[in-house]
């Protein structure tokens, strides 16, 4: 079952003058090689915190990792310091965000920014542990400084044709028309869809083992979203990357994911392959979420909204966090928090309605 990334019992909190908010409460999840795992949840469920925890970009003063492991290729990322984490970030684990305009540096041409991504990769291949750069993080210098030639290649006037070809190739890979023109443009001159595709190009130029995409298409038009998602799926196969897709849109997850994890108020409440999740959801929240999506005309479909609202995470809650809105709530639900267990083959859930699959793991109840 070899997993690429294994998150185990991860707890992260945010501390502010208003109190402590537990953004992730004992979360366990794993991502397999070459699969697209969608993490779905509504606002405040902790999905962005999860993404940032993996890649080590949690804002350090308010956020704190309380416990848990994030095991990537055998190393626990949580324990690594910033300097060692940089060796993974951008190279083995890449991330793209929702708003590409703030991910791309507005004062550099797009071609230069892609060039930098390529240069970082080349530096790593050549065995230099570092590359001095303006807008990707500085890494710890180990060994001799990089040769001067590789630094000159960054500047537009002295860019070698080899580098230029590589830039054009990566733009073509993400199906950007007129790549020679586009590489001379500034980010603000391009549309949201193109910017996002450039971000994908930059992220994938590193050939990372894992690409984390945090709501990458939420800010895009519907047709552009379809183009970008389709592209991501195709490139995944080419580059042999796993993708962790964070989204609030269950429909998007249904369209592109192999496996889906559902989060609620800081917990992963259900995780399984997308077909089982959709046809036989085990957790009441997943069930509720599916029945409140409009899937046809009002005359034919009845929306069943989930009553109530998401609990305030500033106040610690005893038992299962979904109890107050759950149609199947039992007494035990407000007393103990259910464990996240494998109820069926590759289908995990945290709910007292579903017991342990017999014969696999010992029950902890």
């Amino acid at each position, binding site marked *: 079952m070899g997993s690429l990334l294994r998150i185990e019992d991860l707890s992260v909190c945010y501390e502010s003058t208003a109190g402590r908010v537990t953004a992730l409460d004992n979360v366990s999840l794993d991502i397999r090689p070459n699969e697209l795992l969608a993490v779905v949840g*509504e606002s405040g469920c902790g999905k962005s915190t999860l993404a940032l925890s993996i890649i080590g970009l949690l804002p350090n003063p308010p956020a704190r990792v309380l416990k848990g492991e994030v095991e990537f290729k055998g190393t626990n990322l949580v324990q690594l310091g910033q300097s060692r984490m940089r060796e993974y970030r951008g190279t083995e684990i890449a991330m793209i965000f929702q708003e590409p305009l703030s991910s791309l540096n507005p004062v550099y041409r797009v071609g230069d920014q892609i060039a930098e991504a390529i240069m970082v990769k080349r530096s790593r291949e050549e065995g230099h542990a570092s590359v001095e750069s303006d807008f990707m993080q500085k890494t710890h210098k180990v060994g001799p400084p990089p040769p001067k030639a590789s630094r000159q290649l960054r500047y537009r006037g002295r860019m070698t044709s080899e580098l230029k070809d590589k830039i054009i190739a990566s733009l073509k890979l993400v199906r950007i028309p007129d790549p020679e023109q586009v590489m001379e443009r500034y980010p603000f001159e391009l549309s949201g869809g193109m910017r996002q595709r450039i971000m994908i190009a930059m992220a994938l130029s590193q050939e990372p083992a894992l690409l984390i995409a945090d709501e990458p298409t939420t800010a895009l*038009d519907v047709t552009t*979203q379809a183009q970008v998602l389709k592209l991501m799926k195709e490139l995944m196969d080419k580059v042999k990357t796993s993708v962790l897709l964070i989204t609030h849109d269950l429909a998007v997850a249904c*369209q592109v994911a192999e496996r889906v994890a559902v989060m609620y108020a800081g917990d992963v409440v259900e995780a399984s392959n997308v077909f089982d999740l*959709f046809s036989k959801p085990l957790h009441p929240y997943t069930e509720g979420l599916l029945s409140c*999506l409009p899937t046809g005309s009002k005359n034919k479909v009845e929306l069943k909204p989930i009553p109530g609202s998401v609990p305030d995470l500033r106040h610690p809650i005893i038992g299962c966090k979904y109890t107050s809105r759950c149609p199947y709530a039992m007494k035990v639900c407000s007393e103990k928090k259910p464990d996240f267990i494998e109820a069926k083959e590759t289908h995990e859930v945290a709910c007292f309605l579903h017991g342990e699959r017999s014969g696999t793991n010992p029950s902890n109840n």
Partner: protein
Amino acid sequence: MVKEVEPILQTTELSKYFPVKRGLNPFSKSKTFVRAVDQVSMTMWKGSTIAVVGESGCGKTTLARTIALLTKPTNGDVVFNGKSIVNGKTDLRLLYRDLQMVFQDPESSLDPNIKVGNTIGEPLEGLMGWGKEEVANAVEKSLAAVGLPPDCVDRLPGQLSGGQKQRVAIARAISPQPKLVILDEPTSALDASVQAQILRLLLQLQKDYTLSYMLITHNIAVAEYLSDFMAVMYSGNIVEYGLTEEIMAKPRHPYTIALIASAPIANPWKRNLLQVEIRGEVPSAINPPPGCKFNPRCPYAEGICTREIPKLQEVSPGHLVACHFVEKTA
């Protein structure tokens, strides 16, 4: 479905052009215009919901604002409740008793310094000139109608959740008991579970108060759910118009086909998204392509498409499409 066949609102060749100023001279007359809404003609029927769907830049929000006279139309006519309202003599105070709007962003819909009760009562003060007691009574009723507790009256928007804020915005819009409510992306900023609550509320209110809705949205699923009629907009023009059921089952305009195909369906066995073949991007508003604005991206485009803007023509009763080669999608 449709209760009466009387139109409540009709637009005829309605246009809104924005001048593009070049240079520093504030007094120069512009020669270039952004055709945000370009000769839009459509009809809304009493008691029904029409969804105006399209992506960013198609002009749907501008259309809504022009119809509500929040911005002055450049050309064309709007007939509301049998009377033309664009002649500049319309008493807005009377108009807005019957025509109201709910905005997209619940955060900016409510003045953060004004209590909920006063916000909901604002249209009653300004449009009806009621006294404090009458207003208070009406506000109480509106709060109950949208499912908010009466003690909300004294709360400030900052103390409410997104869904609650949107309910307040809806309460404000229905407090003068309008006939037509324009809903501009009412649930786009809300989570899925909250969206479902608001959609159900809107349906309930429509039944209780016999409202007509004009729903502006880019979300096809919401449009399909809530609306009886649909108008698809692209770059300022309506490209397809008709019964929602018919358009969803058999879209005829190449853009509508692509749009519906791109809308993610919550069903892993129906992976439409990965089959979508659409290229290019939404055209520039200042420099649109000549002829049919969709022609650079259209798989069926030929000669005439780059010269003439197609007019809406009937392909079946009540179903209109603006395409020179509409027979290709039959």
